[in-house]
């Protein structure tokens, strides 16, 4: 059996590091709640992310994955429940790096300017800030483009800039919201390896939102499977594949194949039983 009933605590190891991110009974409703309207984005979510862990939030669209990231970052507040990050209430700042799906680069700033933008609060000295930015631009392989504007870059390069920006303040927590969803398939595979490399260099907590099963298994220590309407945690699964994973063919491992078919099955069931889904009630196994 891959995942038993919901076990929100993740690793049941008493020697495991202290929790870095803790969600207890978190709920969030969007829209007007007064007249009974609004949609329940998250219902009673418990989640524990231990220090140094790479954790993926996996699930079909509409299960509140992005909402969790934004609440952990302190950009929005939950309606109920508590969130603690590094033992405190979440607050945006240089201690967390956020990589957005749509890159969100400042179009009128150069690559260097974009990376420096995230460092103003932490590094007051201009020369020092520039040196730090250049170091991370080099780390993602974009030194030649440090003075280029975002409009001159490809999608993959833009996302590398966004990654450099999130990493440059050397945050304890990295929040990634489907960062590779709008990148072509080849670039995406290279970016996944790139991310694993960077993450190995300096182990921070990574909370990674994706709806790709393969991506979740490839990158994570733990996968949090979520269900839609209302968004909730269904199951937490330990991946248990050896790192570094770019040195061998992870996809050929029996554990990978086992996890993938199990997760696919769960997600397909979720989609087919979700009345809001385009595939609701369809029999995908029937012959054409």
């Amino acid at each position, binding site marked *: 059996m891959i995942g038993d009933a919901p076990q929100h605590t993740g690793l049941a190891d008493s020697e495991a590091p202290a929790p870095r991110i803790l969600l207890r009974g978190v709920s969030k409703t969007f829209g007007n709640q007064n007249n009974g309207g609004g949609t329940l984005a998250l219902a009673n979510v418990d989640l524990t992310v231990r220090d140094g862990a790479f954790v993926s939030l996996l699930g079909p669209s509409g299960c509140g994955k992005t909402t969790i990231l934004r609440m952990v*970052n302190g*950009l929005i507040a939950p309606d109920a429940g508590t969130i603690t990050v590094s033992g405190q209430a979440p*607050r*945006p*700042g*240089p201690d*967390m790096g*956020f990589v*957005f799906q*749509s890159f*969100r680069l*400042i*179009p*009128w*700033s150069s690559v260097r300017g974009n990376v420096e*933008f*995230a460092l*103003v*609060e932490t590094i007051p000295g201009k020369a020092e800030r520039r040196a730090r930015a250049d170091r991370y631009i080099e780390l993602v392989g974009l030194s030649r483009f440090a003075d280029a*504007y*975002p*409009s*001159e870059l490809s999608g993959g390069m833009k996302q590398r800039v966004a990654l450099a*920006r999130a990493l440059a*303040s050397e945050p304890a927590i990295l929040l990634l919201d489907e960062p590779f969803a709008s990148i072509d398939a080849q670039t995406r595979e290279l970016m996944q390896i790139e991310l694993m490399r960077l993450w190995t260099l300096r182990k921070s907590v990574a909370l990674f939102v994706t709806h790709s099963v393969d991506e979740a298994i490839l990158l994570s220590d733990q996968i949090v499977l979520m269900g839609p309407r209302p968004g909730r945690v269904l199951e937490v699964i330990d991946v248990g594949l050896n790192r570094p994973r770019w040195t061998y063919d992870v996809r050929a491992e029996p554990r990978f194949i086992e996890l993938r078919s199990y997760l696919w099955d769960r997600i397909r069931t979720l989609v087919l039983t979700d009345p809001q889904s385009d595939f609701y009630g369809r029999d995908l196994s029937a012959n054409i």
Partner: protein
Amino acid sequence: MKIAVYRLLFLAALIGLWWLASTQVARNLVPSPLATLQAAQRLIAEGRLGTALFDSLSIYLGGYTVAIFLGVPLGLLMGTIRPLGKTLEIFVYALSATPRVAFIPLIIVFLGLGPQAKILIIFLGAVMPILINTYAGALNSDQDLVEMARSVGAKRQRIFTQIVLPGAVPFIIVGLRVGATIGLINTVVAELYTAVKGLGGLLAIYGNTFRMAEYFVVVLTLALVGVVVTEALRFVEIRLGRWRRSEVIV
């Protein structure tokens, strides 16, 4: 370069048409290009054109500058402080839909016929497009970028100066350009309705006495001022918009 040649060719065609019109229209209503050139030389030599241009430019730039220094900050405030914007916008739209010429008698009663009245008339014309476009630019700020800035811990002031303000610049420039044109129109209107001075004053004098060559000189001078001002603003726009690689029109 090619465009410059095309423009010169078009200008030559316009002058050709003008010359043709001057030979066809009776009673000297359209002066020939040559007669206009001679009139221009005369007006410049007598110093009349220079004095009038100086008068007009000083009230024009006065009114326009005040419009910029009030319109841009107020537009930014309205765009960033939503309750303020929502409260004021209906009044701004109402005022901008009212022909500002309607206020001229009132302005004359309060400020007389001197430069203060003229500057106010120009200001009232120029400030509306500047204010409304700046407001639109601030409202249109990229919320995704604002959220990104919040997530790196940027303070309100930095979000404003580095995200909201630069994002509004293209809108502000459009406002400045429209404001400059309306300001110039109102300069002439002010000079016609209040103390008859400046280029508008010359228009009135030469128009009423049917001295069409001189009249044309004044009209062309006004057109030239308009071109210089809008081209200067376009230069600023291109300088500020270098990051928008694909949209730069040179």
